[in-house]
């Protein structure tokens, strides 16, 4: 077995440098690597390109990095819950590349799977298709999209083992397994870290081969963006 454990978030993020490209798992505030984001704020790493489906909210998630102006460019599909984001984007302080959510996911998977490019119908006829090759398959126009990779992919899992195998919980899975495949170095922060052999090999979502560093997060706040409930 290849041991992937690092003692803490500081060790997990050794080598993250100004100007790097990071992928960060999560959908909204669900399943985001909170411990790593907090550490990135502390590290004051600058000029980051962040690939993440959303940009957090003003006071949590990637919003924390935006407040500190550590992000040069965001590659996302939906950024609607963040005023500071909108301000930086409309003022031109922040470069933004908005891409369809499915293309974002598939481009990350492609990056991890050694597929340099693929055709998709999503975005044909829109701004997203500008400058991209268009080709018809089965009578339907498709555009050519390229793989995305990152210097570091930073993901959050529910359980992990010392071999780097990961299990996600419910919809906190989202982009995490996909991005885990696409990092030159993939860092996983987990709620519970167990010895190899404790996870059922049939139930693992992300094989440890995709993970270079794993640690148990100190604290998971797990903020809820839209609390919706019904009465008993």
């Amino acid at each position, binding site marked *: 077995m290849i041991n992937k454990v690092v003692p803490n978030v500081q060790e997990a993020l050794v080598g993250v440098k100004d100007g790097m490209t990071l992928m960060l798992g999560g*959908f*909204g*505030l*669900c*399943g985001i690597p909170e411990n790593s984001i907090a550490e990135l704020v502390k590290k004051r790493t600058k000029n980051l390109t962040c690939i993440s*489906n959303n940009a957090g909210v003003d006071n949590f998630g990637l919003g924390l990095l935006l407040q500190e102006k550590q992000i040069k460019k965001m590659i*996302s*599909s*939906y*950024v*609607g*819950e963040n005023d500071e984001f*909108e301000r930086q*984007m*409309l003022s031109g302080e922040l470069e*933004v590349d*908005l*891409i*369809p*959510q*499915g*293309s*974002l*996911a*598939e481009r*990350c*998977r492609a990056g991890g799977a050694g597929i340099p490019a693929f055709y*998709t*119908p*999503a*975005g*044909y*006829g*829109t*701004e*997203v298709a500008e400058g991209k090759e268009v080709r018809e398959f089965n009578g339907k126009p498709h555009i050519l999209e390229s793989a995305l990779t990152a210097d570091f992919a930073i993901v959050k899992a*529910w359980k992990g083992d010392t071999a780097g195998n990961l299990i*996600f*919980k*419910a*919809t*906190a*899975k*989202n*982009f*995490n*397994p*996909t991005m885990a495949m696409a990092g030159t170095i993939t860092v996983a922060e987990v709620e519970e870290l167990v010895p190899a052999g404790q996870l059922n090999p049939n139930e693992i*979502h992300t094989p440890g081969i995709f993970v270079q560093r794993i640690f148990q997060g100190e604290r998971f706040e*797990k*903020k*809820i*963006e*839209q*609390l*919706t*409930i*019904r*009465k*008993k």
Partner: protein
Amino acid sequence: MALDKIGIAKRIAQELQNNTYVNLGIGIPTLVANYVPKGISVEFQSENGILGMGPFPYENEEDADLINAGKQTITALDGAVYFDSATSFAMIRGQHVQLTVLGAMEVSENGDIANWKIPGKMVKGMGGAMDLVASAENIIVAMMHTNKKGESKILTQCSLPLTGVGCVKKVVTNLAVLEVLPQGGFKLLERAPGVSVEEIQAATEASLLVDGIIPEMSLVD
């Protein structure tokens, strides 16, 4: 009387086909889940990674790890399954989800839709909408017929950046049910209760085919 959001959702619920998978967008479309007709089995896919979405949780039973694409806390029904984003859009792009219901800022008479960006003013992003409209067999738009200034959102041509081209099949608004004709143009199918054809025509900038007597929607619960 023009419909409210719930009325629009109720009317769209009548479009649900038995044994199909459906993706509901944020806003009015989400409400459709509350009005599934009796005897119709549908399963709702939420693109953040769940099939078999259930109602909101009871107080203090919410789970931050279980949300829908609108970031709302939800529950999971028997038979539910969670999956990652790449698999989620494999379902969507691969046409395993038969119906998409989504909101729009503008719809044009050739079935174009715009709902993600107002240049220089508002840029929320397209989320999964571009993938959804590029792939689903059936796409129904749920929206108000006019904007806050009273201008028609049913247009000859969209003025805003597009989300998808030639994809919308039907539009359900507070005033009417419209079909996008294969050759282009809208056909008026139904009127909201008490709304006249003339009112609909006045609120519609696009060419509108009115053929024969246009029935009122029936919105029995």
